[in-house]
């Protein structure tokens, strides 16, 4: 009995769906025809040709009237930014060289970085440390960004692939995915990572912004933040925020593949390997096998002496041993 009752019902449902499909297809066709008509009209009136670069890096020439600006939803933008952020820039291997003999503890790098990434005053993607390695060796200032290791311990331990190594050598953090376990902080020998313990500094202003993994803004409570080698700037062909902000010529930034690095203050471009070879370049704690992409030139022949008031702080770390 029940089956017989079912049958006619099913039929009507199928019929309904068929009708709906016809109406749907019809309206899609109709509207596209109208759109095509409008476009045809536009083409006739304008007829200008422009060049556009596709997301796949293809240069195309089209009628200007054919081009419609893509207004993406916030979600679509996020997907795009996430993909671009994880892919990195093909063919590049970014490196930084920090000339310790030039650093005068001006800290312009620190403030530029904190402004760009909306960090709290105690959150440092880059931190200028006062160093004293042994009792009789002279103290010096040492800017310390993330070392963007080629064998990054932080990336190995991350349980969710929130922090990752890109083909261009940059190590990023995706705060849309980070679960806040802080294993990466524990694993990093350079203390390069910070955590958003509280609501981030510009949480309210940034609330509507689409998250850009290459800038790590907006920052999110309960997730990690770290130095990004200013991946957003680098994508535009610019130098990182800290590098351009330095008044003393401390930083060089460039591409290892091109063997060229540019000084952020003088804008002078020099050979990367020659710079290291001529000045005794080195990396921090190479014995850990992390293979940093940040190189240091020793604090030899400093023009400005180490400030007396900073001496105690520099010696503090030493006195523990």
């Amino acid at each position: 009995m029940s089956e017989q009752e079912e049958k006619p019902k099913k039929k009507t449902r199928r019929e309904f769906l068929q009708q709906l499909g016809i109406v749907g297809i019809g309206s899609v066709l109709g509207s596209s025809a109208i759109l095509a008509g409008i476009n045809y009209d536009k083409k006739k009136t304008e007829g200008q040709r422009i060049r556009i670069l596709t997301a796949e890096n293809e240069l195309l020439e089209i009628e200007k009237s054919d081009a419609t600006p893509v207004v993406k939803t916030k979600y679509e933008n996020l997907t795009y930014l996430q993909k671009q952020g994880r892919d990195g820039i093909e063919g590049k291997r970014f490196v930084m060289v920090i000339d310790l003999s030039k650093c005068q503890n001006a800290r312009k790098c620190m403030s530029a970085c904190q402004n760009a990434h909306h960090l709290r005053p105690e959150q440092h993607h880059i931190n200028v440390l006062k160093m004293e390695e042994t009792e009789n060796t002279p103290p010096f200032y040492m800017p310390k960004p993330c070392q963007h290791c080629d064998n990054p311990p932080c990336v190995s331990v991350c349980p969710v692939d929130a922090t990752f190594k890109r083909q261009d050598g940059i190590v990023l953090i995706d705060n849309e995915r980070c679960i806040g376990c802080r294993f990466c902080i524990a694993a990093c020998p350079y203390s390069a990572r910070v955590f958003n313990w509280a609501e981030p500094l510009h949480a309210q202003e940034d609330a509507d912004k689409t998250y850009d993994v290459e800038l790590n803004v907006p920052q999110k409570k309960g997730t990690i933040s770290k130095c990004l080698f200013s991946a957003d700037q680098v994508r535009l062909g610019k130098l990182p925020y800290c590098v351009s902000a330095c008044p003393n010529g401390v930083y060089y930034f460039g591409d290892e593949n091109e063997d060229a690095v540019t000084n952020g203050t003088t804008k002078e471009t020099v050979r990367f390997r020659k710079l290291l070879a001529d000045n005794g370049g080195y990396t921090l704690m190479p014995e850990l096998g992390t293979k940093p992409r940040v190189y240091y030139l020793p604090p030899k022949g400093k023009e400005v002496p180490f400030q007396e008031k900073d001496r105690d702080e520099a010696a503090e770390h030493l006195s523990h041993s």
Partner: protein
Amino acid sequence: MLEQSKIDKITSDLLGSIRLNKSFMIWMGFLGVSLFVCLGAYVKQLTDGLVVTGLGDYVSWGMYLSNFVFFVATSLIGMLISAILGLSGAKWAAPLARIAEIIALAFAAVAGLVIVSDMGRPDRLLNVFIHGRVQSPIVWDITVVTGYVLISALFLYIPLIPDLKICSEKLDKIPPFQRKIYKILSLNWNGTLEQEKLLKQSTRMLAILIIPVAMAIHTVTSWLFASTPRAGWDSTIMGPYFVTGAFVSGSAAVIIAMYFYRKNYKLQDYITDFHFDKMGKLLVLVSLIYLYFNLNEYMVPGYKMKKFDAIHLNNLFIGGHAVMFWMVQIFGLIIPIILLLFKKMRKPLPMLLIGIAVLIGAWFKRYIIVIPTMEHPFLPIQNVPLHFKVYTPTGIEILVSIAPLILVLIIITLLSKVIPIIPIHETIEQLEEKH
């Protein structure tokens, strides 16, 4: 054959604890209210973020992590008593097997919650399953801890089947639904030879299976630390060091539980001085092994005093953490070992006190393993507020850390009110074998 009257006495004695009385209600009420307060603290943490804790960018793992290690550690005792002692034919441990399993299950299950309380984004917990990466020790840890909880639950349940049958038949004054649950869970047990054989085989299989899994949970937990290059954690013996330490805290927990179960449920005839004596000897044994690992862990780097090891060890031996370090070693390990060598000290009351000292020592030992290392990274800590340099747990953090302990007590108490904590079936069986 054993006389029926004797069997009846054993059954009624061991079923005696399964009833809800006034003291149980008061105790549960107390635990419930305390848990509520602690959950309030956690809600505060959820809304404000981990800023309510004493953690900072340098000491970013603190009390929650050491608490997690403690809970995983204590849960290992189930494997030692039920599996290792059971398989090696140590009959004396049989009456304690269920207590050990209850402790194992409670601590392991709650350990999972402890680690969630440490997460900055607990709402993204599922990411571990969606985006999990095989190379992260956290993923290994979640896998093996979940596995251990499941196997421990089975290991508690399967030997319980005959007792559940006894419960459904012999317990009077229980509501019909409870009797029905017992009946369903007892899976039509009627004690045929075939069923007995099946029970023996599956118990044995679980006992074998649980050993590597239990070893894995604490070894992997130790690798959360040993997989980093930090001084104090960068050690190759972390795995066995943690596993042996786990037996110390677990044995202490079982001793404490034995004391209170015996006293409150009037089980003096079943958990006797003999069992306390044996447990005392077991505690000496595991403590000596752990002491040996401590010697290796601290003396070997202490002899060389490499730059960063020296900073770490100076801090432990004579620096900021010296008082805690030496208290833990002396009162949590050395003095208990010496005391327990004397027969007089292996009586219930002294054992309870020693057990409590060892358990507290074991908790602080995990604190000593986790926090001091984080306070001394390779590069100096500068340009940050003072509370980033020295870690002090906050009130909220302490409350959130107490919550898991309360949960464990609730689980242990509740389980003891629905199942006999001394295996009835096995006790009768062992007596029959003797005859």
